[in-house]
Each structure stands twice: as structure tokens, then as C-alpha cells.
């Protein structure tokens, strides 16, 4: 379990207060009155941190929460639902209208993941990133990778038949194929430790960008709402299908910077694993899910597009951060060269 993070605004502060309140004492929770109360929920760190804490109650929980039953506190659930409405609305606005041509979900997923080019970040890490920038990337992504694949496990009881079997097969690989030291979360923790970085999730949540928290919250939104089970699987398909090539690039960046083997090992594993998972997720899971429940087709594609859009946003935020911190230095170099 981890400790409750420091709040960074009114919404997260009210969640923290509610988590610290005595179980039977009075407590109140944040509840945006209406969709639109928070102008940019996808990058608003306060909003995303509040939602992240409410989700975290369903994963590892907080060691310093006053009430061990906070997970099912009705007021916290009401608060989560209110934040989720705002969040989902913002994601749908970002993605735009969705429809699967001829209901052919396999083709639609293949197409959107083929044309999407979310590789700018990976190319930067491959060719240009400094050691510090690569470390900051690992720190930022730790918020997800230390919990890698856990959101999707919530979907197993929500789907059936061949799609369930395929998801279980994919998750088995994510969870180490029977070998605890090959658990992907563990590989990531080993990579962090090899660089002398902490392996405690709360360290990274404390520093994470709003958009990074949004990319993780998106998976929980989809996985914890049965209505969005199709989106959860579409998200997984898009995530896996756009992972192997970027992981290959990051691996080359890791080797260029001569980072420890444990870091390379994590990305090396993911090149091969995700090339398999991509096929399992698109065909085995999403294809069969939509065969069984044709009405889910648009929902599956929505999840895929949401993954590409929100993860793209999180990537852009990181690239922008590095660019702005490099700008003064590069300008000085430029001036020196010119003078």
C-alpha cells in the first residue's frame, strides 16, 4: 500500500480530506456540479489526481486512509461517478464521432493503429534524449507500469466466451507466464531500481503530469464501468498495437545512453511480447467480442481512439516539457556559435 499523495488543488484536497476523515464522522467529497465545471479535465492535475485517488482505492489502496472500507464509501463512489462524467465527456469531445464501417472491427482497429503516428516521443528518446530526460520519462511512465495490466484484469468477468479466454491468455503473459520474476510490473521496478530510482508508486504520482494521470485514469474508467467494457478492450488493442515499434526505439535509446541491462530488458521484452499481444487483442479479444456482441463495435473503436488521443496528449506534454527546458540551453549554444 502507498501513502495518500499531497493534494494540489480544491478537488484533490477534498478527496484527501475525505480519506483522512474518521469512518463515521462527517465528511464531504468533491462533486463538480456539471460537466464543464473543469475547463480542461484531461490536463488538469488537480482533477486527475482526485480521480486517480478514487480509483486507487480499488487497486492497492492507501495505508494512511482512516477507513479501511473507504473503497465502497457511498459518498466517494458518488464523487467518482461525478468526476467520471466530466472525464468521459472530455474524452468523447477529443475523439469525436465514432462509427465502425460495416461493423468490421478488426479492420477498423488495424487501420487506426496503422495510421496513427504516436512515435515522435519514442524517436526523441531513441535519438536525442539525455540520460536525465530518459530517466524523467521512466519516472513519468512509472505511474502506469508499476501497475501494468491491472486495469484490464477487472474486465475478465465482464466479458465471456472466446474473448475472455484470449484476454486471460494475454494477461497471463503480462503477469509473467507463471514466473514471478517475469511479471511486467516487476521488470519495470527492476529497471527503476537499477538506476537507483525508488520503486514506490507514490513518489511518481507526486510528480506526474495531469495528462499522465489522465492516461492511467482512462484505463480505470473503461475497466471499472461495465458499460465501457468494449472501450476497455479497444483501448488495450490500440495500446498493444502501438507499443512494439516505440519500445524498439526506446530500447535503442537505452543502449545509446548505456543504461543498465535491467532497463534494456524491460523494453526488449515488450518488443516481442507486444507484437504478439497486438494480434491477440485485435483479433482474439476485440474481434470475438464484437462477434458475440455486435452492438459493442463502436464502443470498442471509441476505446481505441481514446487511447491514441489521450496517450498522444500525454506524450506531447512530455515533449513540450523537454523542449522548453532545453530551449534556454540550446539558445546559449546557438549564441556562442554565432558570436
Amino acid at each position: 500500500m502507498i501513502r495518500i499523495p499531497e493534494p494540489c488543488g480544491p478537488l484533490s484536497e477534498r478527496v484527501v480530506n475525505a480519506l483522512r476523515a474518521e469512518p463515521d464522522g462527517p465528511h464531504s467529497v468533491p462533486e463538480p456540479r456539471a460537466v464543464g465545471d473543469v475547463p480542461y479535465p484531461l490536463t488538469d492535475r488537480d482533477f486527475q489526481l482526485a480521480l486517480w485517488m478514487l480509483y486507487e482505492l480499488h487497486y492497492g489502496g492507501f495505508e494512511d486512509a482512516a477507513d479501511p472500507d473507504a473503497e465502497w464509501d457511498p459518498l466517494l463512489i458518488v464523487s467518482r461517478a461525478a468526476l467520471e462524467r466530466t472525464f468521459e465527456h472530455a474524452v468523447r469531445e477529443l475523439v469525436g464521432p465514432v462509427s465502425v464501417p460495416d461493423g468490421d472491427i478488426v479492420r477498423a482497429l488495424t487501420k487506426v493503429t496503422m495510421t496513427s503516428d504516436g512515435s515522435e516521443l519514442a524517436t526523441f528518446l531513441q535519438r536525442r534524449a539525455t540520460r536525465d530526460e530518459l530517466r524523467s520519462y521512466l519516472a513519468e511512465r512509472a505511474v502506469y507500469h508499476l501497475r501494468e495490466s491491472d486495469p484490464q484484469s477487472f474486465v475478465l468477468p465482464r466479458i465471456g466466451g472466446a474473448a475472455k479466454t484470449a484476454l486471460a491468455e494475454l494477461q497471463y503473459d503480462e503477469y509473467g507466464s507463471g514466473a514471478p520474476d517475469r511479471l511486467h510490473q516487476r521488470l519495470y521496478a527492476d529497471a527503476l531500481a537499477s538506476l537507483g530510482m525508488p520503486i514506490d508508486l507514490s513518489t511518481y504520482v507526486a510528480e506526474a503530469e495531469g495528462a499522465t494521470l489522465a492516461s492511467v485514469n482512462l484505463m480505470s474508467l473503461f475497466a471499472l464501468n461495465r458499460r465501457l467494457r468494449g472501450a476497455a478492450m479497444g483501448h488495450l488493442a490500440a495500446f498493444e498495437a502501438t507499443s512494439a515499434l516505440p519500445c524498439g526505439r526506446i530500447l535503442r535509446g537505452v543502449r545509446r545512453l548505456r543504461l543498465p541491462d535491467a532497463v534494456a530488458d524491460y523494453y526488449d521484452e515488450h518488443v516481442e511480447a507486444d507484437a504478439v499481444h497486438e494480434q491477440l487483442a485485435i483479433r482474439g479479444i476485440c474481434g470475438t467480442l464484437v462477434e458475440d456482441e455486435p452492438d459493442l463495435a463502436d464502443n470498442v473503436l471509441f476505446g481505441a481512439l481514446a487511447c491514441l488521443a489521450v496517450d498522444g496528449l500525454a506524450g506531447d506534454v512530455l515533449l513540450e516539457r523537454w523542449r522548453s527546458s532545453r530551449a534556454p540551453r540550446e539558445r546559449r549554444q546557438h549564441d556562442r556559435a554565432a558570436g
Partner: protein
Amino acid sequence: MTRKQRVTVIDCPRGPLLVRGADEVVGFDGTTAETNRAVVAVCRCGRSERLPWCDDSHRARRRRRPPPKTKEEPAEEEQD
């Protein structure tokens, strides 16, 4: 746990062969690649950098032109 009885090969159009239940892939030159994965993706396009396994390089096929160099992007505010 039951032992796996069947090996299945799934044809992924414009993608790899997905093989469930393989223990090893033997190349025509006799080299053997072993695996412990329940399912493996075997490259068919020949572009993979980790043959015989797929590394998704077939996805990069469409991009024939070299990607634009980031250096050529105008530095916007910084250019005066």
C-alpha cells in the same frame, strides 16, 4: 494443469503468423529459436530485427520516405 495438446497457427493478414503451443522455430539453415511463450508471433515479411520473431516492423513498411528531421522545424518564439 493439463499439458498442451494442440498447436494452432493463425494467419494474420499483412502481419505475422500467430503460433500457439510452439516450443521452437527451426530456420532453413538449421538455427533453432526456442520460446517459453504460450503464443508467439512469427515474422513473415522478413524485416524483423529479431527473426524469426515479429517485432512489428511490417507496420513501418508504409513509411518509405525518411521521417522529416525535427531540426528543420522552425523554433517559433525563439526565432527573432
